C-alpha cells in the first residue's frame, strides 16, 4: 500500500475573530511517509494540525481518510480515526505517572479497580519497539523534557494511530536527542504509519522528510518530494516576496557583518559564583561565573528548565540571589529590587510574554510604561502625566511598527507578534546598559524575528550588553559573541565565536561533556 493516499485535507479555512489564520489550505499525506510541514511562526502550521486533530473547528473544509470523508469535531473523533498529535507544549498531568498519562481517556473495561499492570507491560513493549525508552511508573513531573516527549509519542502509539502529528518536536531536545527521535520516526513509518512533522527549521525538515509542504500566511505555497527540494527553494517559499532573503538575518549563511561583530572592552555585568535556590533550598543555579562586556551579546544555550529562567530572574531582582556576587559597573546588585534595577538601566524581555510581561485588560499605553511608571517623563510631581504617556506611546507605536488602532486600545486585541513588539518597545524606551532577554523570538513570524534581531544588533552597536537566553541554537550561533551552555543550573562550558559547534553544544546541553 505504499504511496497510496492516507489522508487529505481540502479547502480548509479558519479564522479567529477578524484574523484569517488559514485560507483554502490543502494537504495530502501518503501512507508510510514523513511529511514535513514547513513555515515561519504564524504561517498556520499548528492551526492546520489543530483542525485535523479536532481542537479547532474550521469555518470550511473537508477531511478524507483513506479517500472516505470523515467529520472530526473533537480530539475524541480524531483518535477514533487513528490520528494522534504531539503538541509543542506537552499536554500531560504532572501529578500522574507515565502509565496514567498514557491510558487516560481509554476507558478500561470490566475493571473494578485501577490496576494498571497489563497496561504498564504494553507500554514497556511499545517503548522498546520504537526506541522510546521510559520508566512507566515514574511521575511525569520528575522527568526531563526529552523523556516527557517520549511519553507524548507513546500516548499516540499506544492508541494505535496511523497518522502521527508532531508539532515542533525538536524545540526542547539536544541535537543528539533530535537524531534519536528521527530514528524512532523511521521505525514508525516502516511499520506503516504516516507522520506529519511541523517545523520552522529548514535543515531538520530536509534531513528527515520524504515530502515537504510549505505554508505562508495561512496559505499553501508548494509541496515537493525531498529530492526536488533545496534550501533555496524552501527559503523563497517561506518568506515570499515581502522580504529580501539576501539581507535577511534569519536565513543568513555568512553571518553578521564586521560592524556587528565588534565587542567592547569594559565589563558591564560581572557575575561570580552565583547561586539561586528554590523554596526547599535546593539549588537551581549553581556557581555561575561570567562577565558581559559592552557591545557584547552573551548567549546561554540549554534545554528548557535547566535554570535559565532562574538565572534571568535572579539578575532582574525577581528571585533572591542566594549566594555569590553580581555587579553592574562595579555596583553590587545583590539584594536590589526589580524597580531599582530598572532605574539603573537594566531591562528585561521575559520568556513568557503573556504571563510575565503583559497586562491584557489595560490599554497599549499602560502596557508600554509598565516598570517605568515612576520615571521621566511619565511621572510628574506625584501624578502620572497622561499627556506625556500617550505622546510617548504614539512614538513607540510608530517606531516599533505596532499594529493597533490607537494607544487607548485594550492590549488584549494585539496579535502575538505585536505583543512582542510592545515588549521590545518597552525594554528600549529608556536608555539601557544591560538587556536580559529570554527566548525573545519564541513564537514569532519571520518578519518579527528579523525585527527583533535587527533591534538587538542596533542596541549592541550603541554599546548595550546583552544576556540572551535561548533554546534556539541557530539564533544563538548567529547573534552571540560567546555562548555558555547551561545544564542543571551549571555552566557546562563557554565557547567563543569561531569555535561554535552545534554538536559540542548539544553534548554539553545533555551533560555528557564539559568545556574548559
Amino acid at each position, binding site marked *: 500500500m505504499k504511496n497510496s493516499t492516507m489522508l487529505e485535507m481540502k479547502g480548509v479555512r479558519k479564522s*479567529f475573530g477578524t484574523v484569517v489564520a488559514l485560507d483554502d489550505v490543502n494537504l495530502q499525506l501518503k501512507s508510510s511517509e514523513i511529511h514535513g510541514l514547513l513555515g515561519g*511562526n504564524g504561517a498556520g502550521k*499548528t492551526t492546520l494540525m489543530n483542525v485535523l*486533530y479536532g*481542537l*479547532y*473547528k474550521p469555518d470550511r473544509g473537508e477531511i478524507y481518510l483513506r479517500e472516505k470523508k470523515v467529520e472530526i469535531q*473533537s*480530539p*475524541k473523533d480524531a*483518535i477514533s480515526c487513528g490520528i494522534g*498529535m504531539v*503538541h*509543542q*507544549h506537552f*499536554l*500531560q*498531568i*504532572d*501529578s*500522574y505517572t507515565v502509565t*496514567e*498519562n498514557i*491510558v*487516560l*481517556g*481509554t*476507558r*478500561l473495561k470490566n*475493571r*473494578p*479497580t*485501577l490496576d494498571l499492570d497489563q497496561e504498564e507491560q504494553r507500554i514497556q513493549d511499545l517503548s522498546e519497539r520504537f526506541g522510546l525508552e521510559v520508566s512507566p511508573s515514574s511521575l511525569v513531573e520528575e522527568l526531563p523534557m526529552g523523556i516527557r516527549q517520549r511519553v507524548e509519542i507513546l*500516548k499516540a502509539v499506544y492508541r494505535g494511530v496511523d497518522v502521527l502529528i508532531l508539532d515542533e518536536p525538536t524545540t526542547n531536545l539536544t541535537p543528539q536527542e533530535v537524531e534519536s527521535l528521527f530514528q524512532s520516526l523511521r521505525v514508525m513509518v516502516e511499520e506503516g504509519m504516516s507522520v506529519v512533522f511541523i517545523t520552522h527549521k529548514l535543515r531538520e525538515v530536509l534531513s528527515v522528510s520524504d515530502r515537504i509542504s510549505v505554508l505562508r500566511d495561512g496559505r499553501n505555497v508548494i509541496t515537493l518530494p525531498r529530492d526536488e527540494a533545496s534550501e533555496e527553494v524552501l527559503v523563497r517559499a517561506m518568506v515570499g516576496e515581502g522580504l529580501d532573503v539576501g539581507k535577511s538575518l534569519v536565513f543568513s549563511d555568512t553571518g553578521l557583518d564586521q560592524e556587528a561583530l565588534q565587542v567592547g572592552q569594559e565589563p558591564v555585568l560581572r557575575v561570580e559564583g552565583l547561586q539561586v535556590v528554590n523554596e526547599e533550598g535546593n539549588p537551581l543555579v549553581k556557581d555561575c561565573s561570567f562577565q558581559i562586556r559592552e557591545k557584547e551579546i552573551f548567549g546561554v544555550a540549554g534545554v528548557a528548565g535547566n535554570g535559565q529562567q532562574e538565572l534571568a530572574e535572579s539578575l532582574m531582582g525577581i528571585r533572591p540571589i542566594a549566594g555569590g556576587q553580581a555587579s553592574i559597573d562595579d555596583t553590587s546588585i545583590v539584594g536590589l529590587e526589580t524597580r531599582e534595577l530598572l532605574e539603573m538601566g537594566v531591562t528585561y524581555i521575559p520568556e*513568557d*510574554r*503573556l504571563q510575565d510581561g503583559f497586562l491584557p485588560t489595560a490599554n497599549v499605553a499602560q502596557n508600554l510604561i509598565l516598570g517605568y511608571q515612576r520615571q521621566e517623563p511619565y511621572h510628574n510631581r506625584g501624578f502620572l502625566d497622561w499627556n506625556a504617556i500617550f505622546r510617548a506611546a504614539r512614538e513607540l507605536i510608530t517606531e516599533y511598527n505596532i499594529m493597533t488602532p490607537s494607544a487607548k486600545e485594550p492590549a488584549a486585541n494585539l496579535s*502575538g507578534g505585536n505583543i512582542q513588539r510592545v515588549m521590545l518597545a518597552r525594554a528600549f524606551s529608556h536608555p539601557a546598559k544591560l538587556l536580559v532577554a529570554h527566548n525573545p523570538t*519564541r*513564537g514569532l513570524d519571520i518578519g518579527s524575528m528579523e525585527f527583533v534581531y535587527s533591534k538587538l544588533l542596533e542596541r549592541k552597536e550603541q554599546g548595550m550588553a546583552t544576556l540572551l537566553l535561548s533554546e534556539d541554537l541557530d539564533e544563538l550561533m548567529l547573534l552571540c559573541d560567546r555562548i555558555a551552555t547551561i545544564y542543571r543550573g551549571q555552566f557546562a562550558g563557554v565557547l567563543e565565536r569561531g569555535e561554535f559547534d552545534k554538536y559540542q553544544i548539544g553534548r554539553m546541553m545533555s551533560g555528557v561533556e564539559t568545556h574548559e
Partner: protein
Amino acid sequence: MDQFQMQFVSFARLVMLAMVPYVLASQGTMLGGRTGLFSVSQEGIMLVGASLGFLGAYLYGSLVYGMLLAMFVGGLFGLALAYFTTTLKMNQFVIGLSLFFIGLGLSTLFPKIVIGVTLQPPLIPTLPDVPIPGLSQIPILGDIFFNQNVLVYFAILLSIFLYYLLYKTSIGLELRSVGENPKAADSLGVNVSVMRYVTAIVGGMLMGLAGAYLPMVYTGTFTQGMVQGRGWIAIALTFFGGWSPHLIFLGALFFAGVEILALRVQVAGVGVPYQFLLTLPYIATILVMIFASRRVRAPAFLGQNYDREKRTLS
C-alpha cells in the same frame, strides 16, 4: 455505663449528627473543584436548600419531598454555575457570588410567598433515628455510628463511594485530570464540559441537601440566615481536606467537634461570654486555612475556565 462514658457517647453522637451538612457541602465542593470549577455559592445554595427543604416537607407532609426539592433546586444552581462558566466562560468567582446573592434572596422570599409573614412559623417533624438491626446493639460504637438518622449513614457511604470513584476507577482518573490539566484531558478525548456540568450539578444537589438537613434535624423550621456560615466553612474544609474525600470526612468531624464543643461549654457555663464561644468555628476555619496553605495541593486548574480555541503563546 459510668458518667464519663455516657458523656462521651452523647458527645460523639452529636458530632456525627453535626458532621452531615459539612460532609455533604464539602464533598459537593470537592467534586466541582476536581474538575476545576470553584464554586463560592455554597452558602446561598444551602440557604435555598434549607428554605425549600422546609417548605417541601411542610407542603407535602413528607421529609423526603423536602429533600428532593432541595436537591432539585441545588442541582439547578449547579447547572447555572456550569452554564455561565463552562459554556459562557464567565468568571467563576463573580458568577459564584451572584448565585450566592440569588440563593440568599430566594431563601427568604419563598417562605414569605408560601406561608406569609408570621411570628409563629409552622414546624415540620424532625428526621427520626433509624437503628441498624444488630449493629446498633454493639456497646458504645452502636450508639455512635448505627443509631442515627439516614443522612448520617448517607454522608458516610457517600465519602467512601467518592474515594473509590476518584482513586480506583478510570472515570476518577479522567475526572481528576480535568482539574489538573483540562487541555491534556481534552486532547485525549475526555469531555471537559460534560465532566464540569455533571460535577457542578451533583455538587449543587449535595449542597442543597446539606441545607435541607438543618431545618429537618436542628430546628424544625426555616429561619433567616440559618446556615450561619457553614457554606463558607465548607470551602475551608475542602482545602483543609486537600480535595480528597476521605480527608474531607475527617475534617468535617473536626468542625462538627468544634461546633458541639462550643455548645457544650456554653451550656456548662465557664465564665467566658457566650459570644466568644460562638466565634470558635470561624476562628477554627481561619486557623485551618493557615495550616492548609502550607501543605495542601489544590487542583492545578482550580477556578480557571477552559477554552479549547484560546490561543496561547506557541
